[in-house]
């Protein structure tokens, strides 16, 4: 069939294009623009080329040093949080009821932490962990543990990790639960006829069927934890010292505290690229994992 060329079609794309332009492309370009300039206030800007980027990626400079320290801090935080939340979410999803009133009840309870605004979560844990009036901090103190997130970096980290696990494991559990619910009964019946153990049912049926939702869960939790700002800012303000200063907190300090728009813009761009790259790597690895590799010599089609 002959296809007619009709340029009016571009008009139909225009609204979507404008929307994306104003919501994403133009703001992003503003940041790119800042990142190649220096400012001394008074709305005066001077061309700086890739200077900020060079400084940022050089660990021996002041800016680069701060950047790499918080970058590793962020990666460590995401790794810890993923290593706890993903297995825990799966376990929670597996132990949730399958039918009856208990389904609705457990869904509501699980959804509760997700409905609380971030800064409220931070405030809750900030008070909860205080050693003078906080239920947790006070109880730990009474038990003889020397717990104080204000002065001890390890305690501060543990508080933030536990807070994040409390806040977000539900999301992983709900996604996994949805994945589990989509498995037809016949799979479980076949597995029981095949004499599969509980563990074999998990590895042969449930885990493979949850692969897609787990991919989404890992991506969401990585992005969110890598960009975490509000909760640690409310609980520890980045301290004690700089021990919980994550990239986002560093960025706000640069942009709003020191008003170094050029440095902050360069950091934003690099930050953004890191998130994109890591997500792309996750996605590629997880979608290709376990794919059929044809034996060598057998021609693919």
């Amino acid at each position, binding site marked *: 069939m002959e296809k007619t060329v009709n340029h009016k079609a571009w008009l139909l794309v225009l609204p979507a294009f404008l929307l994306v332009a104003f919501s994403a492309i133009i703001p992003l370009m503003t940041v790119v623009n800042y990142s190649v300039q220096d400012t001394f206030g008074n709305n005066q800007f001077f061309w700086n080329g890739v200077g900020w980027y060079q400084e940022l990626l050089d660990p021996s400079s002041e800016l680069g040093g701060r950047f790499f320290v918080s970058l590793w801090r962020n990666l460590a935080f995401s790794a810890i949080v993923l290593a706890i939340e993903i297995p825990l979410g799966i376990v929670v999803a597996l132990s949730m009821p399958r039918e009856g009133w208990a389904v609705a009840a457990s869904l509501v309870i699980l959804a509760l932490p997700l409905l609380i605004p971030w800064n409220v979560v931070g405030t809750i844990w900030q008070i909860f962990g205080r050693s003078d009036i906080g239920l947790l901090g006070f109880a730990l103190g009474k038990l003889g543990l020397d717990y104080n997130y204000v002065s001890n970096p390890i305690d501060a980290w543990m508080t933030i990790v536990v807070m994040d696990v409390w806040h977000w494991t539900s999301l992983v559990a709900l996604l996994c639960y949805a994945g589990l619910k989509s498995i*037809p009964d*016949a*799979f479980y*019946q*076949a597995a*029981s*006829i*095949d*004499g*599969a*153990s509980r563990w*074999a049912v998990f590895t*042969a*049926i449930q885990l*493979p*069927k949850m692969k897609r939702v787990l991919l989404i869960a890992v991506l969401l939790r990585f992005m969110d934890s890598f960009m975490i700002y509000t909760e640690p800012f409310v609980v520890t303000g980045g301290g004690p010292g700089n021990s919980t200063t994550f990239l986002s907190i560093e960025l706000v300090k640069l942009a709003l505290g020191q008003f170094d728009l050029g440095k902050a813009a360069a950091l934003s761009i690099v930050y953004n690229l890191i998130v994109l790259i890591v997500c792309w790597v996750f996605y590629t690895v997880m979608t290709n994992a*376990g*794919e*059929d590799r044809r*034996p060598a010599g057998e021609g693919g089609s």
Partner: protein
Amino acid sequence: MACIELVDLAHSYNGGNADPSTFALKPLSMTWRQGGAYALLGPSGCGKTTLLNIISGIVKPTRGKILFDGTDVTPLSTERRNIAQVFQFPVIYDTMTVGQNLAFPLKNRGVPRGEIEARVSEIARLLDLAADLPRKANRLSADAKQKISLGRGLVRANVAAILFDEPLTVIDPALKWELRSKLKTLHRALDLTMIYVTHDQTEALTFADTVVVMHDGAVVQTGTPEALFERPEHTFVGYFIGSPGMNVVPGEVHGREARIAGHAIGLDRTYGALPTGARIEIGVRPEFVGIAKPAPGLLSARIERIDDLGRKRFAWVRVGDLKMAASVPPDMSPHMLSGGEAGLVFSPRQIHVYADSRRVEGTA
């Protein structure tokens, strides 16, 4: 391998105290012979899948017992009953290769590795899957996946029976024949009891030596495909088997004579006293009603439509208020049919008499 007996089996999804007329499976007793190929045939919702799931142990019956070779297995789990089941949609373990899928039931039972390999390659050969053994199972087509599901049942030595729950639902029509004849070959080669649930009469009649027709939670007839065709014991069997289904029309029967719409038709057998007050119906398959030129002595009918099925032509006719289907003789020319008026010729041997939907046996 086993002979399966069902003793007073009944099932209700609403518990044992529910009204017996609402039971998904009405009380029944029957025996499935070792090595038989059975089909459970019936429309959706007639209880055939319930019966199958009771035999496999997925559903616990409300009443009654299941015996395998005389041993009561009613309380045993699916796994311990040693049966295999193939489901409507292929169940395969996605992350495993075809070979690992076939080995899975043996691995779970702790069979030594050497023995597993021998069994798997033997079954793969039987199912023509040998070349696919190292491939990921989820890359195969639906019919190959269904063969894997079947293979996982076959690898186990001494399975009591293989149950099929509408296994060809998702298979291409062209491949259905192939897979069905594969099943028949396997049945002959392995001497296994096979029970095949379907609502497709062609599938049931080509697969099974014995067809069990179910209707509304009860078994209405058990017999060979020929018996179901020639002597339907219940009007439902008449409708459901055969295409088009049997003509069942109200009539009167006295001795060796039936009356349809006031017209007398001679019968092959004598019917004595029929149950008084029963609804009497005459059943005759369209294959045994012929269209002829209107003539005195023939039941006259108006032709409404002709269906040409290629090998055969059927005429849909109206006799008074009654609708019937009849065969058109191959040599009958179109202009004879165009008039619209015809006479119906009955084969007396193939006319059945039903009282309240159940067939009444006449005497010769």
